[in-house]
């Protein structure tokens, strides 16, 4: 009996040991054994990231090259990674020295690569959204973002009308607010970064001006001017500023297709920094042409916009570039682009009418694939508005009897270069899909002011609005409707200061599983924000997340 009792106890002890052993050992195939990455150095566009393996108390970091000390940065903190600003040269040898708090030094000799890497520094998760069907770009979940001119803030507008302001340095959210049940259509900052301007597509169609805390400074109700109903709501798609903080906006409302006519109500407005209306164009009527884009020179002398349409209207022609006096809104000149018969009976200048900051050149991009450059200064002198050149970039061509064209989207001016961005390929034969992708579609084209093609890049999917600084170009790429390749989504970053063609300028690509719908580059070049959105595949599978990737 005693033996039996002892056996029972022994068994209980053994069992306890077994259970404890089971608890403290690792499960196979799990991630419980975290890998401590070894020391390493990554070169980015603006510096170098040293990963130290484990968290260390770092006193200072020094960088040497060619026997010279280039950088000496005091840290005095416990860190696992140290980022150092350095303007490095490709293939140069650098010595990185990390001084520990104890005084011990660790050195690493590293050759800089030909091209920098992109490093994700933060991911901002956003609200749930209903993914769009990937078969059409017009189904895409929307979202916009913008860095402030001083690079301190990132403003984010979501598909559901949610507005956030992020402190870029800390990643902290400064404010969040729900604007409306409609979409946020445009976000921009005043030149001093002190005011945030936001527009919405809603029954009111407000233009809001907020301070950095999200307090409303003033607002303008577009519906009072252009009308509104639940089906056809007004909004502002684009704003421009001069250096005094005056804002210029393109107000629009599409009124539907009635009796064979596409109805538009559009107007240009200029407000001072306090929200007072400076002028309207036209001053005494509403235009009946489509209107999306607007640009202005920093000195406030010139404002440009282009009109669009899908057919004839009564008063205001489609496909017309207008240049206004920014002081008073009076028209200085205009030029009408005629449609390409027989494929089109109208011209749309959706997003491609811009002016160089010095006011000398005006660019225009027609959605039928034609790019134009005008010499504004000469036209003002000669009173003869004619383009100095025209490029047929993605204009209609027939393949197997089917006319196809690459929809031309955006035009930009940067560093004496005109950049055109073309998009998806469409067929002009009713009911027939394009048999191939247009050779000029889904591409970036860069021309000098003499019309010479400087470089061209065939992006691998649909390019949204580019993020641009004087040095960097970031292209958000979403679906390719012809190849249906899901691997192409992401943000493609180019260094415009590099010589050579587009392959040489292509710095790197950060891929996203979902579609990348928007991007921006901070004016100090340090950060790139990429807006990823989910999309629904034909089999119902949803790919990607609704989030922002902050890269450096």
């Amino acid at each position, binding site marked *: 009996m005693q033996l039996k009792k002892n056996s029972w106890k022994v068994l209980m002890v053994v069992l306890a040991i077994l259970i404890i*052993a089971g608890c403290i050992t690792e499960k196979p195939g799990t991630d419980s054994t975290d890998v401590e990455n070894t020391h390493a150095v990554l070169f980015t566009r603006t510096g170098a990231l040293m990963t130290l393996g484990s968290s260390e108390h770092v006193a200072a970091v020094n960088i040497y090259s060619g026997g010279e000390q280039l950088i000496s940065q005091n840290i005095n903190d416990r860190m696992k990674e140290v980022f150092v600003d350095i303007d490095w040269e490709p293939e140069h040898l650098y010595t990185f020295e990390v001084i520990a708090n104890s005084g011990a030094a660790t050195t690493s000799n590293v050759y800089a690569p030909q091209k920098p890497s992109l490093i994700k520094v933060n991911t901002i998760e956003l609200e749930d959204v209903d993914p769009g069907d990937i078969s059409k770009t017009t189904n895409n979940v929307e979202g916009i973002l913008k860095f402030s001119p001083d690079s301190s803030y990132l403003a984010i507008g979501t598909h559901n009308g949610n507005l956030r302001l992020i402190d870029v340095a800390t990643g902290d959210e400064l404010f969040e607010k729900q604007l409306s049940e409609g979409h946020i259509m445009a976000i921009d900052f005043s030149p001093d970064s002190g005011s945030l301007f936001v527009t919405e597509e809603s029954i009111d169609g407000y233009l809001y001006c907020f301070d950095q805390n999200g307090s409303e400074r003033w607002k303008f109700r577009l519906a009072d001017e252009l009308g509104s109903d639940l089906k056809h709501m007004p909004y502002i798609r684009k704003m421009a500023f001069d250096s005094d903080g005056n804002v210029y906006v393109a107000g629009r409302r599409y009124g539907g297709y009635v009796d064979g006519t596409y109805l538009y109500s559009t107007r240009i407005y200029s407000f001072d920094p306090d929200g007072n209306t400076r002028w309207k164009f036209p001053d005494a009527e509403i235009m009946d042409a489509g209107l999306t884009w607007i640009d202005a020179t920093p000195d406030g002398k010139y404002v440009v916009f282009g009109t669009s349409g899908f057919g004839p209207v009564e008063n205001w022609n489609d496909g017309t570039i207008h240049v206004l006096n920014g002081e008073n809104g009076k028209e200085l000149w205009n030029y009408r682009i005629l449609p390409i018969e027989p494929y089109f009976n109208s011209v749309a200048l959706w997003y491609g009418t811009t002016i160089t900051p010095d006011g000398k050149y005006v660019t225009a991009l027609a959605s039928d694939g034609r790019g134009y450059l005008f010499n504004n200064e000469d036209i003002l002198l000669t009173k003869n508005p004619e383009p100095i050149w025209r490029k047929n970039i993605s204009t209609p061509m027939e393949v197997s009897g089917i006319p196809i064209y690459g929809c031309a989207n955006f035009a930009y001016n940067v560093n004496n270069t005109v950049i055109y961005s073309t998009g998806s390929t469409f067929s002009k034969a009713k009911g027939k899909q394009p048999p191939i992708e247009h050779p000029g579609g889904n591409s970036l084209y860069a021309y000098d002011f003499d019309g010479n093609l400087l470089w061209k890049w065939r992006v691998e999917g649909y390019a949204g609005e580019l993020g641009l600084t004087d040095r960097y170009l970031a292209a958000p790429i979403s679906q390719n409707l012809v190849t249906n390749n899901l691997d192409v989504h992401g943000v493609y970053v180019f260094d415009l200061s590099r010589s050579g063609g587009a392959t040489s300028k292509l710095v790197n690509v950060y891929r996203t599983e979902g579609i990348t719908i928007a991007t921006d580059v901070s004016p100090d070049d340090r950060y790139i924000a990429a807006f990823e959105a989910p999309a629904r595949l034909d089999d119902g599978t949803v790919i990607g997340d609704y989030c922002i990737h902050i890269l450096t």
Partner: protein
Amino acid sequence: MLSKKTALIAVIILIGFAAVFWNLGPAEKVFYQANFESGHYTGSDVLTSTNDMLSLDTGGPEDIGGGEWNATASVPPAKISWQWNGDDLGDFQYWLRLTFSNHKSIYYVAEGSMNPQSGGELYRDEQGRMRLSPAVIISGIPLGEVKRNVREDYTNYCGSFDNVEIVRINIGMVDNSSLHQNKMQISNLKILK
């Protein structure tokens, strides 16, 4: 005839042993282990291999040369480890590269090594156009045992794409110096869950 109590104890012991066996099994699942004799070689014949070790020995310090080893794979980004060593290094290339199914690639470059000639993955897209997908270069990796969390490296530097796989592994060893022997050996290359 076993008593109910004895049977219960036996069951508990069996469950306990099963739990221990489950937990004391291999802690790391090996997705891939390099066999250097089965890969492909490019470049000169100064690269030699045994089953789990790849070596470069160009002979005397005045001799130069090098080459590349590569093998295909089909494994998700996971943890990777290898052991790399070198003697009398100077003016050399020494790196390991992972190429992913979406043409992204990461080079792990040894401390002091020059960078690989290639800046990324050249490939033809669906429409036959030659394209470059620039690589991520992670430099300054110390010699000895190396462990990297590839999923973390991929997510931090390449993208958010979840369904990506490692499709090729390359190792480059090049002695460009007539002053150094540049002996290199890499072994025990494994991709682990």
